[in-house]
């Protein structure tokens, strides 16, 4: 059955060997049940609500007909799963730590989306065996489905990849030994502009797939005998996964280095786009910064030093590099401001209704954001708090509309509540855009008297990036 085909029946497709050697029957679950479609829509709605922009770069073609094991960095907790469920084709099954199932309601949610629990020895109360987990993974892949695993095994607050564990390689090799053909391991790097902030940008960098058959053939004389218990094969594939993941995902020595290398990339890319780009593509910026992070230490230090010196100049001037080089003419400035104000006046009544209805959930999210947790924890808590608080308030408003004005009013409220919230978000973002225009115009005026030293230091940043 072709992936994506709607099918209401469970179809028996074949047999695979179990962990204990005997062969067990596998039933193929419908690939696009009503539940799958509902989850797909829900995830899509939530992702587009939480992020202003999701950029995806696929370096080479993704497998469409054969199963895929996506391996990703884990910087954002729940946010990572949300983004990847939206981006990875054929909604993947998530392999996650079993401790997550112990959280009230979350366990039910994980079961509902078909997540597979993995037991870790260091988790208290966790069972010691992962036989069931491996069997579920083999079954999912045998059915032609995709799987998603975070091979570091932990959520990271550092901007680097933790040592990659062997689980992903063992699943891939075990699945192949159990008859799964054409399996690819696909490295996926998630880059957040600000992982703890709502309505920021996120970039998903999909690296080149690792063909498991080809990887084994290159390493072993007898590829038929390779399975999850073959230590050399597991070690070799794990190393390949780690290398691919480090190329796709952010992997810096420190937050300071991450900030300076991405700033150096942004300045260089802006200079190559005639300096007019206010927002350099997050995808281009982070892909270039990723390659810089792989350069020798002296190259990275040279870039970081050049960027730091240039930033000192910018701080003294009070403008960002983007503002200073935007060259916003008076005519364009006036036209943009008038258009934004016209748009803002049109949106204002709906935004006011949206602000009144959504003030309580907004305050709840602000309060959660003010909690002193690590950014990776906030990237889990804030979206969850937002979905819970907005969902609850909207439910109450719809119920009140039905009670007071009848079911038609309830249906209208169901359609309009997201529209009102969108009006608030767009209005706030337009106001920020107008303030940005004012600053760009001021910077354009002041750039005429700019000391030559600033231009030289900017050129030094670009030169250091290109020479790295």
């Amino acid at each position, binding site marked *: 059955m072709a992936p994506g085909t709607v099918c209401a029946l469970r179809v028996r497709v074949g047999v695979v060997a179990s962990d204990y050697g005997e062969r067990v029957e596998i039933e193929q679950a419908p690939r696009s049940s009503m539940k799958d479609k509902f989850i797909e829509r829900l995830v899509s709605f939530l992702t587009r609500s939480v992020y202003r922009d999701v950029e995806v770069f696929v370096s080479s073609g993704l497998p469409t007909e054969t199963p895929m094991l996506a391996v990703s960095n884990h910087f954002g907790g729940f946010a990572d799963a949300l983004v990847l469920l939206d981006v990875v084709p054929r909604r993947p099954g998530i392999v996650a730590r079993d401790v997550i199932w112990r959280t009230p309601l979350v366990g039910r949610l994980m079961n509902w989306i078909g997540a597979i629990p993995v037991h870790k020895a260091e988790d208290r109360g966790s069972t010691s065996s992962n036989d069931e987990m491996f069997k579920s993974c083999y079954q999912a892949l045998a059915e032609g489905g995709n799987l998603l695993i975070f091979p570091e095994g932990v959520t990271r607050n550092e901007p680097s990849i933790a040592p990659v564990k062997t689980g992903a390689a063992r699943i891939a090799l075990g699945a192949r030994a159990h008859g799964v053909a054409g399996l690819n391991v696909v490295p996926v790097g998630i880059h957040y502009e600000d992982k703890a902030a709502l309505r920021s940008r996120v970039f998903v960098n*999909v690296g080149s797939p690792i063909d498991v058959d080809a990887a084994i053939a290159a390493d072993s004389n007898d590829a038929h005998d390779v399975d999850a218990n073959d230590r050399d094969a597991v070690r070799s594939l794990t190393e390949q996964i780690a290398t691919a993941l480090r190329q796709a995902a952010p992997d810096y020595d420190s937050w300071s280095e991450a900030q300076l290398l991405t700033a150096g990339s942004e300045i260089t*890319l802006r200079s190559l786009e005639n300096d007019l780009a206010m927002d350099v593509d997050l995808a281009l910026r982070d892909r270039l910064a*990723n390659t810089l992070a792989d350069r020798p230490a002296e190259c990275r230090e040279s870039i970081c030093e050049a960027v730091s010196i240039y930033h000192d100049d910018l701080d003294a001037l009070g403008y960002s590099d983007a503002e200073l080089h935007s060259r916003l003419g008076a005519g364009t400035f006036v036209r943009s401001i008038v258009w934004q104000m016209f748009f803002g006046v049109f949106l204002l009544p709906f935004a006011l209704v949206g602000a009144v209805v959504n003030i309580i959930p907004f305050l709840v999210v602000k309060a959660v954001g003010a909690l002193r947790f690590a950014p990776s924890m906030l990237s889990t808590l804030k979206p969850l708090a937002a979905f819970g608080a907005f969902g609850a308030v909207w439910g109450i408003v719809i119920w009140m509309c039905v009670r007071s004005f009848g079911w038609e009013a309830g249906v209208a409220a169901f*359609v309009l509540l997201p529209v009102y919230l969108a009006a608030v978000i767009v209005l706030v973002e337009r106001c920020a855009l107008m303030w940005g225009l004012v600053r760009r115009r001021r910077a354009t005026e002041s750039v005429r008297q700019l000391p030559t030293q600033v231009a030289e230091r900017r050129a030094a940043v670009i030169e250091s990036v290109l020479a790295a």
Partner: protein
Amino acid sequence: MSEWVLLVIVALPLSAYWIRSVFEVIRRGDYSLTQRAAWLLILILLPIVGLAVYVVARTPRPVHMSGARDHPGQAEELVLLAEQRQRKELDDVGFYEATAALRPH
């Protein structure tokens, strides 16, 4: 007064959303002709309920996935060269020569 408020706050955005949805159905390339006709009928015959059903049931637009362009600009060209060097498909000298034209003069 209350009728005006109702008109501006409820009827206007509802109508605008309905019109937007009708145009969206007409222009969706991923729907067959029959699907488009069915959605248009639902939206026209049951404007409010049909709109709510469409909002819930419509297939989300897929996330835009980009690959390397055939004719990349200078910025993208630099990134592609840097990635080739990272994958060891290009050595340092090759990278330096390929990016010579991009250096500030």
